[in-house]
């Protein structure tokens, strides 16, 4: 591998790492913003729409990533439903671009953010919120002073899972983003390329790096889960 030291020619793995972190960070942020109201609604509503919407949110957990990627590719293309909108807004078509990757990742990682939040919200006893209301706290006040502190562990889990799962995606990225260095090539795709090119040394290093990273993230989650369990016990 050349160009290790020269910053103008960053190595392929560094470019891919940057794209990956950018993608995972942005996806997690968007999911926390979108997923919080969605999870609240799923946890509290008695609407008939709850079941179909809940199933839709969970779909990426069982659907082959290529299926989601295929439909997204069609939607994001210039003549697709989504592509026409972004085109009309002067944003161009998003297939094979970084924004397209973000849209795909948001959909693909959604259950990993929404599910922990939803069970966190569902576990809050209704009388606590009613008591807060009789103590003069309005709806928004209740969210920040009661709900948020009580579901903080769920938010941590949702953030870590959403981030880790986005780092770990492969199929959807390849379908929607293609493999453009510095723009849409993420670490998992780079690894695939390295194996294809029989660059096993690089592949070993990258695979081990991703393995350690994912394990570390989940380990932190386990520790945090135990700490909160002890604190509440």
């Amino acid at each position: 591998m050349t160009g290790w030291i020269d910053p103008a020619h960053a190595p392929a793995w560094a470019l891919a790492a940057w794209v990956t972190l950018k993608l995972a960070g942005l996806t997690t942020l968007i999911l926390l913003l979108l997923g919080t109201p969605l999870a609240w609604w799923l946890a509290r509503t008695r609407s008939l729409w709850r079941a179909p919407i809940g199933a839709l949110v969970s779909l990426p957990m069982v659907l082959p990533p290529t299926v989601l990627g295929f439909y997204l590719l069609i939607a994001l293309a210039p003549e697709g439903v989504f592509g026409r909108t972004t085109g009309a807004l002067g944003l161009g078509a998003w297939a094979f671009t970084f924004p397209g990757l973000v849209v795909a990742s948001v959909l693909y990682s959604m259950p990993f953010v929404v599910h922990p939040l939803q069970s966190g919200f569902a576990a809050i006893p209704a009388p606590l919120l009613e008591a807060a209301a009789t103590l003069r706290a309005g709806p928004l006040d209740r969210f920040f002073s009661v709900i948020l502190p009580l579901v903080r562990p769920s938010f941590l889990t949702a953030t870590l899972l959403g981030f880790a799962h986005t780092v770990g995606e492969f199929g959807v990225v390849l379908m929607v983003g293609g493999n453009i260095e510095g723009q849409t090539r993420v670490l998992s795709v780079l690894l695939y390329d390295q194996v294809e090119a029989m660059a096993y040394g690089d592949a070993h290093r990258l695979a081990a790096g991703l393995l350690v990273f994912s394990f570390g993230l989940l380990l932190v989650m386990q520790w945090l889960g135990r700490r909160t369990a002890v604190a509440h016990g």
Partner: protein
Amino acid sequence: MAEDGDIRLDLRLARGDFTLAVDLRLPLDGTTVVFGPSGCGKSSLLRAVAGLEPCARGCVRIGAEVWQDAAAFLPPHRRRVGMVFQQAALLPHLRVLDNLCYGWKRAGAARARLDDWIERLALAPLLDRLPATLSGGERQRVALARALACEPRWLLLDEPLSALDAERRGEILPYLEAVRREAGVPILHVTHAIEEVSRLADHLVLLDAGRVTASGAALEVLNRADLPLALREDAGVVLPARVRTRDAHGLVLLDTAAGALYAHSAAAVAQGTSLRVRIQARDVSLALSRSEDSSLLNLVPARLEALDALPGGQVQARLCASGTTLLARISHLSAQRLGLRPGQTLWAQVKAVALLL
């Protein structure tokens, strides 16, 4: 307006095949107890007053303050209410002091109110604790202080003792009485325990299957023999009393409307204290003449007003002792043997008088 001198509650709430429909006028001072079996709708009524039942229709007015009518529905956080829930509902992530401050801060109430209730409910040693480390009784005391620190216009108590065992109930009842005496706000207290009614109620509302069956001054309603209350296993009368003397063994001589009565009291009660006593029908027996050879201390002359047949071969005698009603529960056979008939003068032998301190 003279209209504003009371509380108006006109509420309707339908849920499944259950309908709550009440139309009440309540006094603006003292404790109103809503009494009824579980499922009668008393908790729903309380929740509707607090604004926690968005489907409840009607009118909630307290003095001149309208919380709900045909035109408006104030959400719970805009009603100046203080509510204590069955399970205390303390915020688990906040220390006791922060729980107390939660509503106090938002209500913008006076600092003195907070300090006052911390002291009166003896919460100072608990302020740094988390709710999970408190006993059930301590939790309810915190919940009471938390509600009162907001300077509510109306204090709502939703079976605040039902989650506690008998011992804890005994611990917290004196605090409830202190609140009743010192809070200076009307209280709406919902319960299915007759003891709480006897001790705490100034005004009593009986609720059954979502309908009001009686509403009036507590002692009047409690002692009315024509209500289902009189047919309960623990039926009895509640009388106001004043302590005349107390001896070293805890025997207390009381002056009541029915005459002088002796009672035992473990607690020290000072001479001259006003309190209530409860005399259960099953603790009263009847004699045709005054028995001089009995160990019973309490013998009260009374006129027999009526005999009501009860299931299980029993009859309940309604007596008038110096203008006050007493109930006596005896077997049908005894009534026959004594030849009881209304108008007769008898001696009521009272086996036990419960002091309600």
